[in-house]
C-alpha cells in the first residue's frame, strides 16, 4: 500500500489548504466535530470527542419532505438541498471510520436512503490513529485497531517525527495527489515504524472481550436483570454511539405548512416502543437487552455486520458506568 509522510509542522498548512477547496469537518472541542474555518479551530487531543462524527452522514435532524397546503391542494417538495459540497472529515478515529461501512448496510437495505449515500459519496475520510487508547476502548475486540484502516480513505499515524500517511482508497490517493507538494515519500523504515507502533497500541488496549459465542447470547438469561439494574434509560450511549441509527419521524409545523423530519431516537427511551396497544418493554432490563441483542445478534443476522466498533463511548459516558465489555462477557452463549 502506498504511503507518504507529512511533517508535523505541515499539518496546519494541509488543513488550511483543504479548507480552500473543501468543507472540512474536524474535532472542534472535547464534545464534538464541526465545520472549521481554519486549522486553528481544530481541537486534536488524545481522547476522541464525546460525540461521534456520524452526525455528518446521518444528521440528528433531517428534513425528509416539505409540504404546503394552498387552497385544497397539498404540494410536496423534497428537502432543499444546498449545492452538493465535497467534504473532508478529518481527525476521525479508526473506530468511528469503521462505523460507516457498518451503517451503510442499514441505509442501503432494500430501499436506499439517497441523501445518506450522497453525503457518503462526497465525504473523504481522513482518520488519525490513536496513540493512546483510552481505558474504555476495545476496538480490537471487534476486529478493529487503534490504527485500523476500515472505512477511511487516508490514515494518519503519528510517528516519532511527523505523520505516516497511509493511502487506503482511490479517493484517498486522489486527495494526496492534489496536495502532493506538502507530502514526502514514505520508506520501509517509516512503514515498519508505523506497524510496530500499531502493535504497541493494540497491546495497550486494557480490556478485551472474546466475542466468540455472542450470537448465541441468551435472551432468557436472568443475568440481564442484574446487568441493567442501574440503567437510567437516558440516550447517552445511543446518541454518542457511532453505529446506533434508530430514529423517529415527525411532522413539524401545522397542517398548512411544515416539514416532515427524521430525528435520532433511542431504544433505551421508555417512549420508544410505547403504543396505545401497550408497552412490550416496560422495564430497564428489557430495553437494555434489546439494545445489546440488536447490536450483537439481530443486526448481524440481517445485515452481516456487528453493530459496534468498540469505541467505548457508551462505557465512558454512561451516567452509571455500565460496562458493555462486562455485559458481553456475561451474556454470550
Amino acid at each position: 500500500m502506498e504511503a507518504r509522510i507529512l511533517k508535523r509542522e505541515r499539518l496546519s498548512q494541509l488543513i488550511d489548504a483543504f479548507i480552500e477547496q473543501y468543507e472540512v469537518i474536524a474535532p472542534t472541542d472535547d464534545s464534538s466535530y464541526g465545520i472549521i474555518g481554519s486549522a486553528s479551530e481544530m481541537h486534536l487531543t488524545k481522547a476522541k470527542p464525546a460525540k461521534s462524527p456520524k452526525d455528518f452522514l446521518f444528521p440528528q435532524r433531517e428534513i425528509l419532505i416539505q409540504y404546503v397546503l394552498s387552497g385544497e391542494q397539498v404540494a410536496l417538495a423534497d428537502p432543499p438541498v444546498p449545492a452538493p459540497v465535497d467534504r473532508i472529515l478529518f481527525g476521525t478515529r479508526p473506530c468511528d471510520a469503521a462505523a460507516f461501512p457498518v451503517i451503510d448496510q442499514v441505509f442501503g437495505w432494500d430501499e436506499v436512503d439517497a441523501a445518506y449515500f450522497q453525503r457518503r459519496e462526497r465525504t473523504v475520510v481522513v482518520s488519525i490513529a490513536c496513540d493512546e487508547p483510552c481505558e474504555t476502548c476495545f476496538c480490537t475486540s471487534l476486529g478493529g485497531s487503534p490504527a485500523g484502516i476500515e472505512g477511511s480513505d487516508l490514515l494518519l499515524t503519528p510517528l516519532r517525527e511527523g505523520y505516516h500517511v497511509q493511502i487506503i482508497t482511490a479517493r484517498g490517493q486522489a486527495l494526496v495527489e492534489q496536495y502532493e507538494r506538502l507530502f514526502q515519500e514514505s520508506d520501509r523504515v517509516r512503514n515498519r515504524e508505523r506497524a510496530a507502533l500499531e502493535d504497541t497500541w493494540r497491546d495497550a488496549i486494557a480490556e478485551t472481550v472474546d466475542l466468540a459465542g455472542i450470537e448465541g447470547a441468551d435472551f432468557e438469561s436472568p443475568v440481564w436483570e442484574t446487568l441493567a439494574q442501574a440503567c437510567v434509560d437516558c440516550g447517552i450511549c445511543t446518541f454518542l454511539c457511532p453505529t446506533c441509527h434508530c430514529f423517529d419521524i415527525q411532522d413539524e409545523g401545522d397542517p398548512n405548512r411544515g416539514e416532515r423530519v427524521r430525528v435520532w431516537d433511542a431504544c433505551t427511551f421508555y417512549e420508544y416502543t410505547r403504543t396505545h396497544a401497550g408497552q412490550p418493554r416496560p422495564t430497564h432490563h428489557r430495553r437494555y437487552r434489546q439494545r445489546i441483542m440488536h447490536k450483537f445478534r439481530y443486526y448481524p443476522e440481517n445485515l452481516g455486520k456487528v453493530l459496534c466498533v468498540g469505541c467505548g463511548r457508551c462505557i465512558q459516558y454512561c451516567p452509571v458506568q455500565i460496562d458493555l465489555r462486562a455485559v458481553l462477557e456475561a451474556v454470550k452463549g
Partner: protein
Amino acid sequence: MQAITENIRREARRLLQEEAVDVVIGYELGWNGVQPVPVFVAQPADVDKLIFNERCTHNLAKYLVGREGYLTSRFRPSEETVRVGLVAHPAVMRTIVALLREYQFDRADLTILGIVDGTPVGLEPDVEVGRVEVDSAKEEQIRAQIEELDRVSLAERGEWWRKQFSKCIRCYACRQVCPFCYCEQCVADENQPQWIDRSPSLWNNMAWNLIRTYHLTGRCTGCGECDRVCPVDIPLRLINSRMIAEVSLAFNFVAGTDPDAKPALAAFQPDDTAEFVR
C-alpha cells in the same frame, strides 16, 4: 473513607440478615477499580461489594421513585412492598426530605444509611455511617462562576447560555438521573400536543432545558448529577444552583433542609406577599 465503607458493610449485612430491608442500594467499584457505580445488594453475602469514597456522587434516591422506582413501581404486585436500605450522602438526604414532602413514598419503607456533613438536613438517618467535609472549594467555584455570569450584561449572558444550549443533544440524561424528574409522562415526551419538538434546534433545546429548570425550581437539592452526566458539558449546575439561591432569597426556603417547611412553589398562605393572586 475506609471507616465509612466498613460501617456501610456492617449495617447492610445486619439489615439484610435481620430481613429489615429487601435490598440495599449503594455503590460498588466499577470497571476500572476506581469509578464507583450504583449497586443493588439483596444478599448478605454480597455486602462486601459496597464501598464509599469521594467519587460516590450518584443520587441513589433516583432508584426509589418513578415508573420503575423501588418504592413506587407499578410493576410490582401491590401486596409486595419493597423495603429499601439506601446509602445516602448529604445531597441524597436532602433529596429524600424533599421527595417525602412530595408524598412520593412512605418514610417507613426506607432505611437511611446516612453520611452527614454538618449542613442542615431535614431528617435524621436511621443509621449514621459516616461524616464528610463540605466541599467548600467546589461550592466556591460554583458561586464564583455564577457571579461572573451575573456581572456581564443580560445580552452577553443570554448569548453565553444560547451557546451552551446549542450543544444539547437531548439525550435526557439530566432528566433521567434526577430524582425529581419522576413524572410518568414528561412534558418533553407529550405529543398531543408536541409541546417541545424533538429536533435539537436551539429554540427547542432552550425550551427543554428552561422548562426543566422551572419544573425543578424550589425542588432541586443541588446534587449536581445533571451537570456531571451531561455528555456535552453544559454547566447545568450553574442554572440549578442559581435557582436554589433565588428561591432562598424570595421565599426563605431551601429544599430538603427543613422537614416542616412546605415546598415554596407548591404552597400558598393567605398572607403571601405576592399581590397578583388576590
